């Protein structure tokens, strides 16, 4: 089931009513009901893969209980238990997501030495959201192993944490230490919490259905046949993809966070207006925050983080960017995408300017300064170049696309003008609407946080205007990009 579907529009109110009106004072029953609802939500896509979620949840639940019982001085036993969790979750990922990539890459490498290797590839479908829920359960086992949290004894609460439907298939990747305690305590309905959740859902739907789905049509045409377009349109294609993926993924996150709020849960923020970043370091503090912080806590810091020898710091940075790229998909294009971000980050690290922009941009002011605007544009340009690798089917395609974009950028400008006027006009207007609203709301959690608008009719007019835009200008329904990860 996807968020921008009629099925979800029916599913959500039913679950909401049963959760609050029927089970309102029974925390355990509420948790059990959430597990059931989450499994229905996931099984709507393919019920057979529910067994993977169940297996992942069960293993980590048992590992957690085991770690709680083993004394601290039995280091080897504790390590074995953690290894069971790592082996199960990374094993699932390895088989379903990376097996074909590894055997094909091995076969190609062997071919370079004049040998042939017969490999068997798997034609399995990648289970939706597997990268998200395996990382979520892993965080629990690692935190219990590190004694950062107590093991969860209530199996229903733990299963509800792993399968919580708002963020099950595309994040945010929640930490057990943050979300599990919310399942353990009674919840009370909060009007402000729920109504702000609805606003965030509406804003997420705008980003997904108006921005991402409209950009997707043009992006698919341009990236499928780049040889048919002049460089200027290819450059535009990269920009449109930047907004497609932002609208798609941050839109999903907004709907997930808003939906969780309807049920009395707070899940972590995943995007903080990343395209207003002044450098790549700031971009990574604002883009896919839950994944960046996951890698920081469970990979970067265990490797030594920034409190080690300088060469190790660079190595650690390179590792997390490469692994982050590889997490997105089993293709060299994603690894190249991660490597390019690492290369863009190193100059900031060397000059010790990677933590220069911690405060919100133009804080307390209406507009950015000329310098800030220039920094934003430079950062956005770098990000757009890297998105070409992310979107392309192969490294060759990515380099060909970029070379054609650069070498023919000045040709066929009338064609470019005609393309803007006839094909891209509507999506570009909507992107401007998005940027204006997000700029004015950049100090708030999401684009429709209208606390400053005191007069209710104006607020409601804005909500109806957004609904009208979604209805009138919503594009052809597309799958969420991050489902494939």
């Amino acid at each position, binding site marked *: 089931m996807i968020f*921008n*579907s*009629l*099925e979800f*529009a029916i599913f959500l109110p039913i679950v909401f009513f049963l959760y*609050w*009106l029927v089970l309102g004072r029974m925390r355990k029953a509420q948790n059990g009901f959430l597990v059931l609802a989450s499994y229905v939500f996931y099984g709507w896509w393919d019920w057979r893969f529910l067994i993977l979620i169940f297996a992942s949840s069960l293993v980590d639940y048992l590992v957690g209980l085991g770690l709680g019982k083993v004394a601290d001085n039995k280091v080897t036993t504790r390590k074995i238990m953690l290894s069971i969790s790592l082996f199960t979750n990374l094993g699932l990922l390895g088989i379903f997501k990376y097996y074909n990539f590894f055997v094909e890459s091995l076969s190609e490498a062997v071919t370079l030495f004049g040998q042939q290797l017969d490999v068997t590839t798997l034609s399995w479908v990648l289970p939706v959201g597997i990268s998200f829920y395996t990382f979520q359960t892993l965080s629990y086992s690692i935190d219990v192993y590190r004694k950062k949290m107590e093991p969860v004894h209530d199996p229903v609460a733990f299963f509800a944490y792993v399968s919580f439907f708002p963020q099950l298939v595309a994040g945010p990747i929640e930490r057990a230490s943050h979300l599990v305690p919310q399942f353990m305590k009674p919840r009370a*309905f909060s*009007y402000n919490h*729920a*109504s702000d959740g*609805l606003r965030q859902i509406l804003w997420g739907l705008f980003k997904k259905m108006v921005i991402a789905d409209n950009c997707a049509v043009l992006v698919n*045409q341009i990236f499928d046949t780049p040889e048919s377009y002049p460089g200027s349109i290819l450059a535009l294609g990269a920009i449109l993809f930047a907004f497609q993926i932002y609208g798609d993924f941050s839109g999903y996150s907004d709907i997930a966070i808003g939906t969780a709020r309807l049920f009395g849960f707070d899940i972590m923020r995943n995007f903080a207006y990343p395209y207003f970043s002044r450098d790549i370091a700031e971009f990574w503090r604002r883009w896919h925050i839950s994944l960046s912080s996951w890698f920081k806590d469970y990979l970067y810091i265990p490797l030594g983080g920034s409190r080690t020898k300088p060469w190790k710091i660079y190595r650690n940075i390179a590792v997390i960017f490469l692994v982050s790229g590889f997490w997105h998909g089993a293709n060299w294009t994603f690894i190249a995408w991660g490597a390019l971000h690492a290369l863009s980050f190193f100059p900031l690290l060397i000059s010790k300017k990677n933590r220069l922009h911690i405060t919100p941009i133009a804080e307390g002011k209406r507009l950015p300064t000329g310098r800030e605007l220039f920094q934003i544009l430079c950062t956005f340009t770098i990000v757009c170049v890297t998105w070409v690798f992310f979107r392309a089917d192969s490294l060759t395609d990515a380099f060909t696309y970029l070379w054609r974009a650069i070498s023919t950028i000045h040709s066929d400008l009338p064609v470019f003008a*005609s393309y803007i006027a*006839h094909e891209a006009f509507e999506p570009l207007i909507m992107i401007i609407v998005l940027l204006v609203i997000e700029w004015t709301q950049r100090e708030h959690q999401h684009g429709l946080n209208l606390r400053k608008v005191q007069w209710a009719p104006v607020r*409601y007019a804005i*909500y*109806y205007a957004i*609904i009208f835009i979604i*209805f*009138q200008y*919503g594009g*052809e*329904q597309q799958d969420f990009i991050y489902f494939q990860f």
Partner: protein
Amino acid sequence: MKRFLIKCGLFSIPLWVIFTPAVIHLETHRELESTAVMVSQNQHDGALIGLGYTDPMHLVKHAVLQNRQPEVIALGTSRVLQFREFCFSKPESFYNCGRSVGKVQDLEAFLSSYPGEKPKVIILGLDQDMCSVNDEDMLKDPRAYQFKETSYGTRLTKGTKAFWEAWLNDGIVTGTTIPGTTNFIGRNARLENEGYRADGSYCYGRVIRQSNQQDAYDFQQTIGRIDKGKGRFAPATEINSGAIQQIDNFLKSCREMEIHVVGFLPPYGSAVYDRFKEDALIYPHVFDLHGQLKPIFEANKMLVEDYTDIRSLSANDFETTDGFHGSEVCYLKLLKLMAANDTILMSYLDNNSLDYHIAHAFSARQVVKELPEADPRVPNKEISIKDTSK
């Protein structure tokens, strides 16, 4: 909680107001069926598909091709929709893909995405305006034929949007089901007996049932459009060489795939043809197109015929549905003439049946009686093979 629910209820009232009448109307007329249901009921139960608000027919027809795997197809715009399966010796071997293409760029796209085994013969209607240098469609991308079933929610949203646009522009057509209409999908099928049959041809219910109110055989509507010189009737200085090249590419692709193509320029009513002739210099795509197409068809060992003037078919102006669409009877004659010059096409036809149907056509518009006609006219039953020699 109570406050939240009350506010949500009040907030959603305008949404109910927008969606409820649209959903009731669209569901009553079966406008929201999935492609799978449309294909199944059209092919197995003979349901007429006549949607009033959306037009996914090129995708529906593509899905039909997947199951039907015809040997002969008619390909073109609405100006090939009059070919019927009963003209062929094996009716199930024919399918009419009329309106699957709208411009010359679509031809290659259609062929490259053709599902399953390719047909043996394509009867290709080449609208004259497709090759006009002023055809704005030449700037557009080819159609996408990748079939993807849309969700009910998507169909509902699109249908609701189209419903209110129709309401704002022309008002909503309401009415009751035409007596005897049991198997329909869509408003036009239900209220007007208009839509696509199982063989892909089109039933012009409204035109036939209200023939005396049509543009009265002197084609004033069509001629008025020529006078305005807009859209498909826009004048042009020359034939579009790019369009000719695209057709040539299509023919070469067909030849490589061992598909035989029989092309024709579809007929205009005689009054319309005569009106074009008054300004022959600014309509080169009407009068000179055949001369440019013939060499490329011949180079690929294929035939293209020019039936731009309906009189070349020994047909009269009653055998039309409007100024630029011949009737089924007219196209029956066209098919017979074309097959007389093409042995491959002839091998798929039943010549005796063609002769019988031409001789016993119910009226100028209907070969066999499907619908009552307010003003049935007698077709000109004479047909002369030698007329094709032009």
